[in-house]
């Protein structure tokens, strides 16, 4: 029996794609659906073997009406996501503009700057948290010893244990670790702007601000949008910075959705309840994901391969 060439091609495609499909189904699709199922049960870590009983939407109603929900939502949306993404986009933009300025270019600082950006960028988040916990440490930390010796404060500040400084501290760590990506991407985009556009505008009497506002910014806008959306999705779900910096503390002051999912599942052992929080997060993220797809996602990859 001979196999037709068309059939052969089909077989080839099947075998080449099979491992990817297994991964997508086994580690993305199935867990997502299973998580949905878990969220309607009262399963706990202690009765894993037996499984949980169906409890309807009680997990959802308990979470959404719980006294902590409001704080967790504000922490996640405002502090963790909105503030930290805004700060890193603004800082990244400033840094890119700075490196693209004629003076710094003429001093040949761009290569050095790229290497500088590499250091925080290549630092694993775990180490980034350690570095800043060390800097901010009340007993040994250099920042406290400067502030003390300059007379600005009389007692060391425990930055990560004080309510007024704990969020700024966490955001500083995230910004330090993630701004380089933004900076380098925006710098790359800046360098694609034709030089003569600005020159022509200058001859026509445009001020520096006008050149930035009406030439540079519109040129950068697509890149800024992608970076913002990517950062929002990535930060909203982020667990590691808050968990390692404060463990959601002091108390539960810096608790966010991701740390709540982890604590409910692995400390309170209530997997079903934790799954419901996860599904809530997924719904919010699906919205941002849809936006990403709508504007950039699929078109980008299909443009590449046709």
């Amino acid at each position, binding site marked *: 029996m001979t196999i037709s060439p068309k059939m052969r091609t089909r077989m080839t495609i099947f075998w*080449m794609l099979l491992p990817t499909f297994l991964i997508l189904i086994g*580690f993305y699709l199935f*867990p997502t659906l299973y998580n949905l199922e878990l969220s309607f049960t009262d399963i706990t870590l202690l009765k894993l073997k037996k499984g949980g009983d169906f409890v309807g939407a009680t997990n959802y109603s308990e979470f959404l009406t719980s006294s902590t929900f409001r704080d967790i939502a504000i922490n996640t949306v405002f502090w963790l996501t909105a503030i930290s993404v805004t700060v890193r986009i603004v800082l990244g933009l400033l840094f890119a503009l700075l490196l693209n300025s004629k003076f710094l270019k003429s001093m040949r600082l761009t290569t050095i700057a790229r290497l500088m950006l590499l250091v925080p960028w290549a630092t694993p988040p*775990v180490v980034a948290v350690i570095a800043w916990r060390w800097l901010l440490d009340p007993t040994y930390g250099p920042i406290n010893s400067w502030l003390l010796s300059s007379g600005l404060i009389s007692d060391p500040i425990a930055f990560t244990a004080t309510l007024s400084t704990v969020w700024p501290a966490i955001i500083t760590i995230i910004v330090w670790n993630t701004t380089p990506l933004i900076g380098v991407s925006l710098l790359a*985009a800046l360098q694609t702007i034709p030089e003569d556009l600005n020159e022509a505008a200058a001859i026509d009497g445009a001020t520096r601000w006008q050149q930035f506002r009406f030439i540079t910014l519109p040129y950068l806008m697509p890149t800024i949008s992608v970076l913002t959306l990517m950062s929002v999705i990535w930060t909203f779900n982020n667990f590691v910075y808050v968990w390692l910096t404060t463990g959601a503390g002091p108390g539960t002051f810096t608790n966010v959705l991701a740390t709540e999912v982890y604590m409910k599942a692995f400390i309170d052992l209530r997997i079903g309840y934790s799954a419901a929080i996860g599904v809530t997060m997924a719904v919010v993220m699906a919205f941002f994901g849809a936006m990403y*797809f709508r504007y950039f996602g699929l078109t980008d990859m299909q*443009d590449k391969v046709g």
Partner: protein
Amino acid sequence: MRTRSVNPVANIIENGALLIAFVVFAVFLLGPAFYVFKGSFENLSVSLISSDGGWTLNNYISLFQSGYFIYVVNSLVVCITATAMACTISLFCAYCLSRFRFKGRGFVFAAIMGGQFFPWIILVNPIFIVFARSGLINSQIGLILCYTAFITPFTIYLMVGYLTTIPKSLDEAAIVDGASRFTVVTKIILPIMWPGMVAAGTFGFLQSWSEYLLALALITDNAKKTIPLGLYQYFGDVQVDWGAVMAGSVVATVPTLLLFLPLQRKLVSGLTAGATK
């Protein structure tokens, strides 16, 4: 050709301001890393509160005597295996996506783009339960499977980009000569796209090297812990063994720095390629 006269004093002030801004950025970016590096060579014994200065290698020596070596080995084993698996799987998938049109191609694209941003915090619970039931908790195989799945979407994405630069006529010539598609991929495509494989592999390795959440949920046995988990062993309940933590941090970061150096530009163009058109 200037239409406005430039005031030399204003110019000096402006350039000075730019330079100061540059230095401020430099201190912000490099300061934390510098202090960790410096701290890792200092005498910072927990029992002696004063840091009486002096350079020493004691932090590194005590770090490796306390069993940090195991974490390094575990990280290397898990990350290298996962990267190799992800690269192999991605190569064939990316080849299919760039060479064939078939039903479900759009779905695979969507899944790969979505997978890059998939929030793993949501998948920790179901994966934990499945792994607990099948005995994959505290198993390196379990962690390797997770990391393979975790890095595959982006490695596919990078490789598809690279493959489209390789002309299809190359494979067709080989097919006419009677080669099978698998031979084409392994004997013709692979040697050409080696640089793309290395870039994708480096990226995958870096991703898994710094992964914390899955390791935290799936590994509790000290002998199986990876570097990110191991580092936090030194944060005691009351006191932190800062000397060991700093030395451990340097050990964890040096490989990523070295690998990042050649990869930087590629990643940027990969990440924002769609936007700058």
